[in-house]
């Protein structure tokens, strides 16, 4: 009968974070978030494109870094958010958790795509190749992209939201072993790609003139991620309400 206790515990949990409260809260947050996103990204772009010096080695191509690196960070963070939300959804059956995981996927996939694309655009002048199959970081990043696509495909294919949520959560968790592989690929394998220079144990090793635009863009992208996540979660909650309304109209649920 452990299952029974579980359910009532979960239901108690629902009371604290129900979708209605989320809708009210997120509605108030959206505008300020959007404004802040625009501000930070705008400033970041100014520094990235105009107010920062070219690299002494890489020349002007270094400017690609200001989109590439934040995209790569968010690609990974997106999956991280998805994985954590999935764990919460599986363990606590929190109704917002799987909405959050589902909504994070397309955003994360978009950033992954951007990281791959800008990386290729950077690689062409720097490494003399668009793509390198032998490089663990590039390959694990591509795998991440496939994981995102598979995750979204799974959601799209299973019709019942409850079932889809649980299956997708299992996939997200199993796939999360790829994250450390991406992060440490540069350490474990001998790669073309350079090792971490910002988030290191011993502090960043990057010039402050580059750190500023990178930081601004990173913050801007993160805020963009959060804002979009909120919008998509709201849309998802509405989608479920539409579904319930349709089903209720089809009859059956009439006897509530």
């Amino acid at each position, binding site marked *: 009968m452990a299952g029974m206790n579980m359910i009532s515990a979960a239901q108690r949990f*629902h009371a604290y974070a*129900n*979708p*209605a409260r989320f809708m009210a809260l997120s509605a108030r947050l959206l505008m300020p978030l959007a404004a802040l996103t625009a501000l930070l990204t705008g400033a970041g772009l100014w520094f990235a*494109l*105009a107010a920062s010096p*070219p690299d002494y080695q890489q*020349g*002007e*191509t270094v*400017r*690609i870094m200001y*989109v*590439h690196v934040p*995209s790569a960070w968010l690609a990974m963070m997106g999956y991280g958010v998805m994985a954590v939300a999935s764990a919460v959804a599986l363990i606590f059956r929190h*109704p917002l958790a799987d909405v959050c995981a589902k909504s994070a996927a*397309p*955003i994360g996939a*978009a950033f992954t*795509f*951007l990281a791959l*694309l*800008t990386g290729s*655009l*950077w690689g*062409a*002048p720097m490494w003399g190749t668009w793509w390198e199959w032998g490089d663990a970081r590039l390959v694990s990043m591509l795998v991440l992209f496939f994981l995102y696509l598979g995750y979204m495909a799974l959601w799209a294919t299973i019709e019942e939201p409850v079932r889809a949520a649980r299956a997708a959560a299992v996939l997200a968790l199993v796939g999360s072993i790829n994250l450390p592989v991406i992060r440490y690929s540069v350490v474990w394998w001998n790669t073309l790609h350079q090792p971490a220079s910002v988030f290191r144990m011993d502090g960043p090793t990057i010039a402050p003139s580059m750190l500023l635009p990178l930081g601004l863009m990173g913050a801007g992208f993160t805020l*963009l991620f959060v804002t*979009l996540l909120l*919008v*998509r979660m*709201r*849309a998802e*909650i*509405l*989608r*479920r*309400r*539409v579904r*319930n*309304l*349709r089903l*209720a*109209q089809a009859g059956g*649920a*009439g006897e*509530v």
Partner: protein
Amino acid sequence: MAEFFHMGGYALFVWPAYGAALLVAVALIWQSIADYRAQARLVETLEKAAGGRVRRAAHRQSGEDPS
């Protein structure tokens, strides 16, 4: 200005990177908002079409307070 767009000879790499980022961001933002609006419209029409009884049921089942 021309020098700015020239990007030290790497314009072909730098601008597409920023262009793609812009494109992806705009597409994502546009799609998210359009989806939200579409769902909101649907909820409105469905709720108008349905009686109060059904609306209560739907709220109940999406775990919301009937507000």
